[in-house]
């Protein structure tokens, strides 16, 4: 029998690309509907102000303007929902409305909506709307917001506290710290970042007057969830009255998971006007009003012994939630942060307390890694601090505290599910070997003699991928308002062609290619015969979408399960065709046959034809090969690895030159190495960018000083290194494919590698810590102040 070419594990180029490299993609702003109108938003220039009055008359009189609406006009719809709150505690969740009513809480808050015949006219008319504001004092810092006398963002939230949450064992941790040989303390700021997908966000809503049904094309990572939230919570209409379509989505990084005002106001206005309404943010609006990420202020203490064992970790974090509660805002700094703070280490006592606070800034929610980069940055920075304090090599300190292979499944005591599998030391060893670690230390010492500052930074990380198990996330105390399974339907058509519809929502991850590779192998059909469809709530079964590195481990598994069901049914039909007993049948490489008689087989195409014609089927068997799975995994997956950055700091200018970047990642089994490398590259780039360049910065009045791409330093090609990547492979026991996930690992592993390297480069000057980003100015100032301290 001919050998079937296996697709899994092959670095094939992506099937998504031909349309994208020819400019034939279909992004929301590319869609034009008959009678379509354009929306533009009047936005607050103040961070905090009362709205005293809005005069729309001049705007309304402007030729080409169809309507101008204010917040009070839209009181017939509800505020946006809060889908994931901090678990087990009270949350004062004040969510945004489609437009602000009475008061604005951040710069860019929407105050009025202009609808016009074309884009330019809508923008013209925005300037004709006159809004009278009474400015109020503003607060932008997460911790300062809780201090007495701070301006109050929402009356309902005393001291601006939305929620106060904790995990771990407070008493044991206090005891560990009190009795420790060594305690290192630090204040660590994980600065605000702006996710910046290259496509900004937007919505195009159409209301069908005849049927009362909406269709919304949206830049979304989770159209099914948007459908549910917009109908059941915002509009109070049956879920079936809305169809959500996410066509090509130009990057998301978390920012496109959430429910946004523009989804609601385009729907509302399209119903009011009886014409389609399109709203596309410009970049400045994206920076001011779509969600940001990170923004933690943390006080941390790590306790240990002189011989390098960590004995306790105590963390207090003030997490900035911004001017309102975004869709899953409070889930990020709690479940996805606090519960994984001890990282790859066996730390016997840990405790984390989090205050989620309102400030007069843009809303903060999940951004690539979502809580896990903040956690791994914190522990990895502190491991270096500890190593320096006891005078031990940072690699050795890590080695002495790793969770060991025999410890899995591992319970970290912080209320997380158990880590599925891991073997941390080989990844460290491989990374150290790649940079020739001992030799580097020698080079570094020599360089210092010449006045050159070389530094090496280590980062050993673990993360939570395949974020799903509904029974966990929905358990009492976790705060989530939904499940997190994923769906897939697999159909083998009459002609033998296979169509998959998935609830996953790829927006750059190459899911069409990866999924087709898996299914081609599973069903033994040509790769070209498999089509993957997604993005339309009318076409795909209900699914939760793409985020939390879950497309493969959850969505891919749903498809994998459907394929098994297809094979089972194929065997029953083939048995009937061959006049054999179903229990004697096997299915291999796309053919069903009686065990031991592979030469008398029925191909999947022949079986599909039989199933589709249905002239002769076994009793009780329905026509067609068509199987749907809603897959809910028993656990998350926990990829890990070690990253190393090598930098040289210019003592005169403070400029950091990232000379080498090495990563050894273990993402479980790999379906397409080309795609996995790509995901890691992009992830690392975003972590490097946090360490060296990016800062979503507000002044004390709440003005966003990094409000355009002129000020917010998205790195260019010349600002990023080559990535030297290797892998170890520890298959996940959670799913039969042994896959874990790779979408966020790079980001979670990288920022601390770079910062540890920068601080290592300056360690001989007595520098112990520096906040991100390590811009030339900040590094230069750090060098100067350490020199002064030494004088």
């Amino acid at each position, binding site marked *: 029998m001919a050998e079937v070419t296996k697709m899994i594990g092959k670095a*094939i180029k992506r099937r998504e690309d031909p349309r994208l490299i020819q400019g034939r993609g279909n992004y929301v702003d590319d869609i034009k509907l008959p009678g379509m109108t354009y929306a533009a938003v009047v936005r607050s220039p103040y961070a905090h102000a009362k709205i005293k009055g809005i005069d729309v008359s001049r705007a309304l009189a402007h030729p080409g303007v169809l309507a101008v609406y204010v917040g009070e006009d839209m009181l017939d719809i509800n505020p946006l929902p809060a889908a994931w709150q901090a678990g087990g505690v009270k949350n004062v969740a004040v969510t945004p409305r489609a437009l602000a009513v009475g008061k604005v809480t951040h710069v860019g808050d929407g105050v009025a909506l202009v609808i016009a015949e074309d884009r330019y006219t809508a923008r013209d008319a925005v300037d004709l709307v006159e809004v009278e504001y009474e400015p109020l004092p503003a607060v932008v810092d997460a911790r300062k917001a809780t201090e007495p006398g701070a301006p109050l963002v929402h009356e309902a939230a005393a001291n601006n506290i939305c929620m106060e949450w904790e995990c771990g064992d407070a008493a044991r941790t206090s005891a560990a710290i009190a009795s420790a040989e060594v305690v290192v303390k630090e204040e660590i700021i994980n600065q605000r970042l702006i996710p910046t997908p290259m*496509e900004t966000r937007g919505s195009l809503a159409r209301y069908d007057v005849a049927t009362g049904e909406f269709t919304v094309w949206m830049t979304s990572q989770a159209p099914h969830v948007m459908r549910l939230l917009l109908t059941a919570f915002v509009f109070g209409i049956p879920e079936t009255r809305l169809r959500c379509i996410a066509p090509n989505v130009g990057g998301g990084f978390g920012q496109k998971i959430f429910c946004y005002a523009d989804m609601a106001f385009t729907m509302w206005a399209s119903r009011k006007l009886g014409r389609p309404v399109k709203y596309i943010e410009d970049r400045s609006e994206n920076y001011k009003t779509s969600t940001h990420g990170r923004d933690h202020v943390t006080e941390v203490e790590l306790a240990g012994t002189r011989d390098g064992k960590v004995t306790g970790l105590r963390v207090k974090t003030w997490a900035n939630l911004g001017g309102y509660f975004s869709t899953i805002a409070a889930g990020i700094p709690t479940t996805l942060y606090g519960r994984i703070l001890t990282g790859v280490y066996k730390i016997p006592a840990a405790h984390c307390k989090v205050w989620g606070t309102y400030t007069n800034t843009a809303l903060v929610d999940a951004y690539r890694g979502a809580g896990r980069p903040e956690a791994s940055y914190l522990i990895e920075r502190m491991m270096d601090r500890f190593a320096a304090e006891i005078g031990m090599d940072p690699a050795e300190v890590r080695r002495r505290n790793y969770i060991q292979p025999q410890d899995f499944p591992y319970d970290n005591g912080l209320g997380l599910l158990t880590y599925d599998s891991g073997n941390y030391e080989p990844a460290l060893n491989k990374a150290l070997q790649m940079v020739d670690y001992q030799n580097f230390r020698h080079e570094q010492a020599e360089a210092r003699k010449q006045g050159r500052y070389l530094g090496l930074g280590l980062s050993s990380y673990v993360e939570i991928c395949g974020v799903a198990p509904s029974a966990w996330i929905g358990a009492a105390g976790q705060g989530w308002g939904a499940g997190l399974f994923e769906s897939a339907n697999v159909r083998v058509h009459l002609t033998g062609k296979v169509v998959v519809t998935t609830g996953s929502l790829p927006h750059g991850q190459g899911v069409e290619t990866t999924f087709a590779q898996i299914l081609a192998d599973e069903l033994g059909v040509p790769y070209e015969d498999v089509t993957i469809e997604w993005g339309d709530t009318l076409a795909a079964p209900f699914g939760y979408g793409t985020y939390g590195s879950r497309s493969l481990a959850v969505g891919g598994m749903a498809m994998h399960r459907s394929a098994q069901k297809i094979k089972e049914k194929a065997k029953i039909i083939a048995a009937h065709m061959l006049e054999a007993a179903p229990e004697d049948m096997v299915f291999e490489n796309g053919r069903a046959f009686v065990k031991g008689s592979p030469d008398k087989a029925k191909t999947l195409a022949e079986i599909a034809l039989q199933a589709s014609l249905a002239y002769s089927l076994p009793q009780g068997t329905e026509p067609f090969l068509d199987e749907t799975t809603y897959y809910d995994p028993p656990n998350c997956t926990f990829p890990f690895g070690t990253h190393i950055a090598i930098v040289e700091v210019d003592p005169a200018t403070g400029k950091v030159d990232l000379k080498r970047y090495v990563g050894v990642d273990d993402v479980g089994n790999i379906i397409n190495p080309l795609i996995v490398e790509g995901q890691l590259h992009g992830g690392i780039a975003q972590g490097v960018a946090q360490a060296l360049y990016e800062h979503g910065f507000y002044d004390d009045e709440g003005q966003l000083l990094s409000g355009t791409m002129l000020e917010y330093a998205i790195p*260019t090609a010349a600002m990023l290194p080559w990535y030297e990547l290797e892998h170890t492979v520890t298959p996940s026991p959670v799913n039969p494919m042994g896959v874990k996930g790779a979408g966020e690992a790079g980001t979670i592993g990288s920022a601390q590698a770079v910062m540890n390297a920068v601080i290592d480069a300056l360690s001989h000057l007595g520098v112990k810590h520096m906040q991100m980003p390590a811009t030339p100015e900040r590094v230069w100032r750090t060098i100067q102040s350490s020199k002064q301290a030494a004088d």
Partner: protein
Amino acid sequence: MADKVRIRMTVNGLEQRGEVEPRMLLVHYLRETLGLTGTHIGCDTSQCGACVVHVDGQAVKSCTLFAVQADGSSVTTIEGLVKDGQYHPVQEGFWEKHGLQCGFCTPGMIMAAADLLNKNSNPTDAEIRHALEGNLCRCTGYQNIVLAVQYAAAKMRGEPVTGAAD
């Protein structure tokens, strides 16, 4: 609103005539009037380069040019890069080397890279990175974009190239 102005230009080899507001940006003319939506808009400060097209053979950010300024010009957009059913070597390089993920920056990135290779047939890594500084990508971390441009450069010089697995 100022009176409309008559313009005429060749876009991807076809002559286009029309009347536009003097303030209309070339990118909006291409996208909204001509329906060539392959050229994208990713910012409002001429930073991102998603809108790069060729005007008379030069790479230009079409968000930074009024349509009237391109009057009488010959414009090539991403849709016009395929010749006789064959990908431009830069398009091929992006596909072979996984030089794109979400694809949003890709048209501008490809147009800018093609412009570089018109001027420099054998750029170094540093020259490629420098030439693409006006084009932002948030997905790839740029390494595979550099490899894609190297692939295209080698192919255009008639040298052997190695693509992806299939």
